[in-house]
């Protein structure tokens, strides 16, 4: 009980991971990249994304790097999140991807 509590405080030692399929038509192009990085910047957690579960990982807070991933529609986006607010951060970026970044 006490041990479990201790590991919850501060930095999450093991990164949280999850994946979601890009549903919006244009994939992770300019506008969605901007929305994703704006969302990611709202959290102190380190947020990274990749097209495969084993990387290579890209800083989700860098709009230039996120655009360079060039993830197309139908691609699976993997997220790896580390930090105190990692749970909320992961939920927020996943929701954005599921919603197609508010686009069709």
């Amino acid at each position, binding site marked *: 009980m006490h041990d479990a509590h201790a590991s919850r405080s501060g930095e999450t030692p093991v990164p949280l991971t999850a994946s979601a399929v890009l549903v919006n038509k244009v994939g992770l192009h300019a506008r969605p990249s*901007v929305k994703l*990085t*704006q969302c990611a*910047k*709202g959290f102190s957690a380190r947020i990274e994304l990749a097209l495969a579960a084993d990387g290579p990982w890209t800083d989700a807070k*860098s*709009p*230039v790097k996120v655009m360079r991933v060039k993830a197309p529609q139908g691609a699976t986006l993997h997220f790896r999140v580390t930090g105190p607010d990692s749970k909320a951060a992961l939920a927020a970026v996943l929701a954005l991807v599921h919603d197609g970044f508010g686009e069709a």
Partner: protein
Amino acid sequence: MNSSNSGNVGIVIVSHSPKIAEGAADMVRQMVGSAVPLAWTGGDIDGGLGTNVAGILEAIETAWSPAGVAVLVDLGGAETNSEMAVEMLPEDRRARVVVCNAPVVEGAVIAATESSGGSPLAAVKRSAEEFYA
């Protein structure tokens, strides 16, 4: 010209063509939103292609933020006139205005994205310049 009240770093777009400057500003507003002070200027004083120091100074004034202003420029004269405009600013403001070494359209969108997250001037400049990294 348009602006927005906030403590975020301001963005100024300087192009030889007022249409490019205005179009880039439209992209920033649509893609990034209105949380960033923004202004654009383009054309010489006779309305032709070019840039002018007075117009750039006015744009910096419009987009002014206590966090500073990042200026995105296109070719040659846009850069030298922007640097001249910065030199003409009051001393306390001069250190808070930077001209970015980045493509004008992409750099403006990226700089504004960085600014909208509350990043300081140095981070805004660095992010815009990642395009040439």
